[in-house]
């Protein structure tokens, strides 16, 4: 068997059984990267020597029995907005072109403790702002299924790397759909956990109240194993939640009998591509056949999610990104006169257009005289959206729908019309506003051969229900063609 065809959990088992070594796995991944990167550009940074050294050291620990976990020895890719000690961390922005963190993000530390081996850092939309990975300062990432198309975003590099076999699994971050949407476009599994489940310490913030780190994997089993590993209570993150129920792999059960699933009619109306709708409804049918009770309902308020999201996320981003000023780290303009000119030139040259657009939007909605009309109103909408979900989860275990209205658009199609791009986030964004967990699972392909994603959403802290339903569906469909993308 080609080593790259293993899932993450299978690979680790094979390593622990002595069939292959962590070094073999890393070498295979690096060879795949050599072969595919010029077409795909999933990575900003690949640190070969460090990766091989780390793989050898992990192999030794596995042989000594010091590392026994389900992901020991597995090569992993990390989105470039998570700090990695000693390794370039750019957020795909020019402004952090030379930034090497002095500490690692808590999620990255957890990976390291479990013996997963970091290959490098994946490309993304600059500061996670975008839905296509085209706003990166380090070139676009292309969809492995069809390189004329985008991989989605903002975790497009992570999703593409998993799909192209350039890693065994990856970490992404999701502020408005940035894990689920690229997972959907690239035909992999992506999960955004309940807000507070994975520590945000070391995640370079975009919208702090919405950001969550989560896994992008080849299948649901890997997804559960990775989530189990990175979910941890962290006293360094005030918004981190202490959870007792993080044995997510225990939910890998092939059974949805009696599970109540609601499909919001609002998610299947105007603007959705017919093939996507068909695939999603077919997936619902599969779950129904497995014993779930599926019905349509009205979720309401769906149309308010996008304006509320872009108000809140931009407001937080405008403040979060203030620290990138050329004073302490990162890019500084080459010539300037005085402090204010230095700030202005550094930030004008260091940030890309989409980031500037959101900084301006966020600064505007927080400015005196507009705060109540925009920011506070958006917070009220956020609370009402949460309430609408609460009402839905009083009746359903899960909400099922599409991840995005379409499959992956062609390159350059989205950026010309940012508003249209924002509308593409309609099904994912409200999940972040409500702090809920959501999963994207592949559910087929359109006639162009591009993957379609099925989204399931659960109530807060109910990731197990997501995993169980996704696992059952995946079993039924016989898995997805992962790691084999051309």
């Amino acid at each position, binding site marked *: 068997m080609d080593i790259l065809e293993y899932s993450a959990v299978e690979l680790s088992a094979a390593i622990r059984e002595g069939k292959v070594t962590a070094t073999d796995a890393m070498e295979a991944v690096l060879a795949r990267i050599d072969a595919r990167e010029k077409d795909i550009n999933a990575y900003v940074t690949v640190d070969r020597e460090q990766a091989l050294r780390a793989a050898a050291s992990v192999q030794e620990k596995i042989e000594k029995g010091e590392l026994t976990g389900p992901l020991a020895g597995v090569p992993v890719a990390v989105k470039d907005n998570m*700090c990695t000690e000693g390794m370039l961390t750019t957020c795909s922005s020019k402004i*952090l072109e030379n930034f090497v963190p002095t500490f690692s993000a808590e999620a990255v530390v957890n990976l390291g403790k479990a013996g997963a081996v970091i290959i490098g850092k994946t490309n993304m939309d600059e500061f996670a702002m975008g839905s296509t990975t085209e706003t990166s300062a380090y070139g676009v990432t292309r969809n492995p299924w069809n390189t004329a198309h985008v991989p989605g975003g903002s975790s497009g590099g992570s999703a593409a790397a998993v799909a192209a076999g350039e890693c065994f699994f990856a970490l992404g971050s999701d502020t408005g759909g940035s894990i689920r949407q690229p997972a959907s476009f690239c035909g992999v599994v992506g999960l955004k956990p309940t807000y507070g489940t994975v520590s945000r310490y*070391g995640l370079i913030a975009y919208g702090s109240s919405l950001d969550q780190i989560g896994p992008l994997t080849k299948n649901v089993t890997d997804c559960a194993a990775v989530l189990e590993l990175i979910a941890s209570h962290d006293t*360094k993150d005030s918004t981190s939640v202490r959870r007792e129920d993080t044995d997510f792999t225990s939910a890998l059960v092939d059974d949805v009998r009696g599970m109540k699933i609601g499909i919001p009619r609002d998610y299947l109306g105007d603007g959705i591509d017919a093939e996507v709708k068909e695939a999603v409804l077919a997936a619902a049918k599969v779950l129904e056949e497995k014993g779930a009770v599926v019905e349509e309902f009205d979720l309401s308020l769906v149309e308010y999610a996008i304006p509320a999201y872009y108000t809140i996320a931009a407001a937080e981003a405008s403040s979060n990104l203030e620290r990138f*000023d050329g004073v302490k780290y990162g890019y500084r303009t080459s010539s300037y006169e005085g402090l204010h000119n230095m700030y202005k030139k550094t930030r004008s040259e260091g940030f890309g257009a989409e980031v500037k657009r959101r900084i301006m939007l966020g600064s505007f909605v927080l*400015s005196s005289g507009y705060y109540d009309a925009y920011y506070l109103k958006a917070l009220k909408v956020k609370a009402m959206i949460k309430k609408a979900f609460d009402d839905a989860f009083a009746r359903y275990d899960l909400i099922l729908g599409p991840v995005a209205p379409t499959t992956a658009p062609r390159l350059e199609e989205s950026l010309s019309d940012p508003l249209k791009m924002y509308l593409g986030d309609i099904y994912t964004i409200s999940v972040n506003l409500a702090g809920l967990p959501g999963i994207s699972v592949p559910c087929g392909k359109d006639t162009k051969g591009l993957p379609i994603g099925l989204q399931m959403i659960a109530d807060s802290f109910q990731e197990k229900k997501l995993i169980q339903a996704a696992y059952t569906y995946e079993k039924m469909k016989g898995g997805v063609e992962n790691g084999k993308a051309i």
Partner: protein
Amino acid sequence: MAKQYETVIGLEVHVELATKTKIFCGCSTAFGGAPNTHTCPVCTGMPGSLPVLNKQVVNYAAAVGLATNCTITQYCKFDRKNYFYPDNPQNYQISQLYLPICRDGHVDIETAAGKKSVGIHEIHMEEDAGKLIHDEWEDCSLVDYNRSGVPLIEIVSEPDMCSAEEVIAYLEKLRMIIQYLGASDCKLNEGSMRADVNLSVREVGASEYGTRTEMKNLNSFRAITHAIERERERQIDLLESGQQVVQETRRWDDAKEYSYAMRSKEDAQDYRYFPDPDLVPVYISDEWLQQIRDSQPEFREEKMERYRKEFDIPEYDIGIITDSKRLADLFEETVAICGQPKKVSNWLMGETLRLLKEKGMDPEEILFSPEHLAKLIQLVDSKAINSTVAKEVFEAMFAGNVDPEQYVEEKGLKTVNDEDTLRTTIAEVIASNPQSVEDYRNGKEKAIGFLVGQTMKAMKGKADPASVNRILKELL
């Protein structure tokens, strides 16, 4: 001047809290230290770092609020105040705007003009900024983040004061309360207490306030007094000459006794305050609030009341000793060991205050322990040393908390009570001072004083003056 003007003053007082660690990270708040040594990713604004609230800051802030009769906001939040400046590593300061921890309090002050209650609008918690150092030689600026993230409270008064005297009384009252709480040492000269003065003038009887200015960089009570007087004059002069007072922030130059405009209201920045999404709201439960209430110390008025009952010392002494919690603590701890409150009080009011004044120190900086002060009093009581020697010993204790017994022993300062030695010495003094002896015998009583002095000198101060007197009279 034909018109009569009154001054309206409100204060914004920043107080650095005495926590061991910073408000949002575990770094030390210790003063000094090489630049950027008390720092971490959080207080230097590194990407990905997150703030975590130090609960002790809430304890102190709420304690100050309770002691100043405020309502405690049991569900309060932190907000970000956004502005670009290199001393502020994130380019936003974490502060409180919408839901400050304390509101609607007051403190009572007393001046020559009488008693008055000064309202407190609010008290909020926030982080201090780093320090910029301008290197003119190299023509560059450097920044030290050791102070970045040191916890502060800002106490905002109502515009209830009308003279420098009232302002000083208010500040002294705040300082006493906060020092009693142990929440800060409140040193104006070191910046652990900083006061910005908002001042306007208006004609007596006017119902509207005049346009106010805010005065910064006031590092002593003297500077505050002068700045208030000068700003009042400046504003009246403007109005008298038909000009307007401009709402602006001014900076006091203490050397030149003059202030200049830093920025006007038109330049005022929009801070774009919003709740910090990295911090969860602070919920101060009834139990927590009760704990803070229960651990409030005895404040000055209660302490004075108790002293009147417990200790036989004059009202004057009570006033002086309770003026500083440090002195009061020393007093009580020493009395607990050796009793004799009046003697303890004498040492504190006399030699201690004299030396503090001479050395320009605060009572907080006193080094000697109550055990040692008690020992010193016992040494004098037992006549082991005389009062002159005692003062010498005390100075040594004040300088370095030496053990008085050990010091007396090592320096050989014990009073010599050996009758034979004394008699021999006195006989020698009589023999070598015939003139004084004759004067005394001729009825000049005062001459004996000189002979006592000579004897003490010969004994190197270690004789008991009473014994010397007795033996001298005997031998003469």
